[in-house]
């Protein structure tokens, strides 16, 4: 729906951006602070107590690299899905979204496995600061992924109601995509500064 304002391109200093898209970018800016706080808490405690815990024995770089790869590919598919939506290719959109959801689930599966494994090895939330910060940070990220998966599943089903069309829904898809990509880049950071760095 629209207001009269919308029709006047010159009226906004030529700033016509979709409201939702702008909202999402502002939200993502805010989320930078959010994940920044989580990640820096982790790094600070690592810096304070480097000897308190050695995660290299626990971390499996292969697994984590695999999930990183998975997440990157899901991002790729997401970009394709958005692109498809813009072109109005609903079918291609659906395929890509299914792919994203699938990859997202794999990622979550890896994380669940990882957590279960760590807990089994004796690292819990309350074991030490490493446990606290690590689980809280990666867990929060996992929740973001889960929300993204849920959102995309909803979109997928919505696309079957026939109410979705290139004209109106491209932006909705794009916004979901932005979210998904952001979750991905957060993981890029986590992968490097939380996992890889422990091994050098």
């Amino acid at each position, binding site marked *: 729906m629209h207001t009269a304002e*919308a029709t006047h391109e010159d009226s906004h200093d030529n700033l016509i951006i979709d409201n939702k898209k702008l909202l999402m970018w502002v939200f993502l800016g805010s989320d930078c*602070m959010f994940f920044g706080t989580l990640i820096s808490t982790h790094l600070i405690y690592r810096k*304070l107590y480097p000897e308190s815990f050695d995660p290299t024995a626990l971390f499996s770089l292969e697994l984590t690299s695999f999930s990183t790869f998975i997440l990157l590919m899901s*991002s790729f598919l997401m*970009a394709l899905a958005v692109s498809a939506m813009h072109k*109005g290719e609903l079918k291609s959109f659906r395929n890509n979204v299914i792919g994203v959801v699938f990859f997202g689930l794999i990622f979550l599966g890896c994380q669940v496995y990882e957590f279960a494994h760590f807990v089994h090895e004796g690292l819990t939330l309350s074991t030490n600061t490493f446990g606290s910060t690590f689980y809280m940070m990666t867990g929060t990220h996992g929740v973001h992924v889960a929300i993204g998966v849920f959102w995309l599943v909803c979109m997928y089903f919505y696309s079957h109601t026939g109410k979705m069309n290139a004209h109106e829904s491209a932006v909705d898809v794009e916004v979901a995509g932005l979210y998904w*990509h952001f979750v991905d880049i957060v993981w890029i950071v986590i992968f490097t500064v939380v996992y890889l760095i422990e091994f050098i």
Partner: protein
Amino acid sequence: MTDNDYQPVPLAPDSHKDSETEKYHTFVNLALGLAAITGIELVLVYLPFNKALIFTVLITLSLFKFVAVIAWFMHLIYDKLILTLAFGTGLSIATGTFIALGFLTSRGNVDMEAITGF
């Protein structure tokens, strides 16, 4: 959970077609690149080089991935400047704050005797 009211009308869809195809190629290349970088990173940590060097390279690589996803997958370079500003402000405040915070904490003051949990 957003409202649909008041959103400006999206641009006409047909003008997108060509650019979308173009983007497709970018996306594929980028995806390959990202996968490759991740591979390189994985190998890198096991290489017997100077730690500081590896560290720098790792950070640079992931920075590249980070920026690439934002710029292309998230369309930021195709989009309006205001979006870059909105996100960039948050990103830079966050980066600045947390780098500063990192410098503000040091092992020197920690009272290890008080910590019994390790």
